């Protein structure tokens, strides 16, 4: 069970809804906000979001499962998204992903046992000129090398 939305969160959601001619258009921004606040979108959150957007819970589920950025389960403290699309692959993106996989001992889609890092393999982050690249949470890191990746992993693995 997740806790109900706080008054502050409800206020911010209302602000978002007010920006649209129709309430349901606020669905994606509201889901982004809820995920940011709570780390993921739980079943109770889906129901609460449905209510504010004037939707049935199944319509929220339907949309949310379509978009890869939304999570229905808790993620690690940091989310590591590694691009292996063509431009990044041409610059060694596959090797970078392998390096991370080995170092963390997990496959893409998984979280380290200590709950710190979730690893995700993604398609194109729109930074092909900086390939190979990855994102840690909402920050982009490009021109990756083995050393650079090691340093980044050390930084986010620190307690």
């Amino acid at each position, binding site marked *: 069970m997740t806790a109900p939305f706080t008054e502050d969160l409800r206020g911010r959601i209302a602000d978002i809804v007010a920006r649209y001619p129709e309430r349901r258009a606020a669905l994606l921004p509201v889901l982004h906000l809820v995920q940011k606040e709570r780390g993921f979108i739980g079943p109770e959150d889906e129901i609460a979001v449905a209510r504010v957007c004037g939707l049935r819970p199944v319509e929220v589920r339907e*949309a949310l499962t379509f*978009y890869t*950025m*939304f999570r229905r389960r808790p993620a690690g403290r940091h989310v590591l998204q590694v691009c292996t699309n063509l431009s990044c692959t041409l610059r060694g993106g596959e090797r970078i992903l392998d390096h991370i996989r080995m170092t963390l001992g997990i496959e893409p889609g998984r979280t380290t046992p200590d709950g710190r890092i979730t690893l995700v393999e993604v398609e194109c982050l*729109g930074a092909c000129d900086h390939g190979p690249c990855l994102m840690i949470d909402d920050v982009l890191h490009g021109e990756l090398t083995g050393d650079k990746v090691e340093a980044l992993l050390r930084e986010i693995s620190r307690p």
Partner: protein
Amino acid sequence: MSEKNLTRFFATAAPRALEDYLRTGGYEAARKALSSMTPAAVMEEVKGANLRGRGGAGFPAGVKWGFVPKSGEGPRYLCVNADEGEPGTFKDRYLLAHDPHLLLEGIILAGYAVGIRRAFVYIRGEYEELARRLEEAVSEAASRGLLGENILGSGYSLSVCVHRGAGAYICGEETALLESLEGFRGQPRLKPPFPAAVGLFGKPTVINNVETLTNLPGIVLHGAEWFLGLGKLGDGGTRLYGVSGSVVRPGVYELRVGARLRDIIFTHAGGMLPGRILKAVIPGGMSSTILGPDEIDVAMDCESLAAAGSMMGSAGIIVIDDSVPMLTVLDRITKFYAHESCGQCTPCRVGTSWIRKVVQRMMSGERRPDDLDTLVRLAGMMKGRTFCPFGDAAAGPVLGLIEKFRSELEG
């Protein structure tokens, strides 16, 4: 000669603040249009400039605006397509990062020309930081009377709402973008009706790419003739060519429409990485048909690339070197399309995943003599049989690769 227009201020610290933008002539085009031009005159100027859409399809922007009914009750909308997702494309990221006010001024001009009072910027979810900066620029502009009610005392009003996507390539397709903005799964609509008649919330809607809109201030300020002079007949202006892959200096290069592909790669992007030889080039984002090393003297404009059997697309140039097996390229491309198919149309949903399965088996070393023919057959079954261009986009690269690199892929 410098060919820079959109990016001439990119050397300054990013992003360009409102003060700097104003000091260098910013919002002068909006001032000019709102004070001394009719909406119809703005539209005529843009039509005359032959500004072709920079998102991928290359449709003339002024003509697209002209499809919106002149009269009629109720609201109409502008949707800015900032869902840059075509692999190999990152030019809109540059524009958003460096010059958010240039985009906002373009939005004002488009809105004014078409009689729109509400604009939505649909920006890809991964550009979270850029979305935040753009929102700041919107409030900054509003606080100076450049957006909102009664812009610059002209009586024209326009609000801009920044809306983040959530990780779905298909939402760059304009009707999928509308569905997504309305809070649905991003699945394309059957056309017609086109968005100009029935778009966002069922109202007339213009959808323009970021780079397309950033060209408007220049056109309004300097005129259609000036813009045509920057490019070529029928295809005005400059383009932001994004170069990535096996080159020395990956990046965005602003050059005239019709610049030679060879020059972009070897002069501007610094040529191939040391010790590597050019093997192939994808000229306009992943969906465009691959070109061999003997085809790179082509001019980068919509017509020349179409004549060469490929397309201008988003001008995202991916350069592939001789150390890369074409099977790897095929693998990356088919993985992408199988992942991103929205699942609505059967030929695409089933086709992309079957193609993927065959390629994965080939990658594992288990080959069958008719693999390539199977792939050609599967790709052919998607082409032209889907609601949106995704089916063609997924089929084209497979067919192109097999046609041009058959002997290597057979090996």
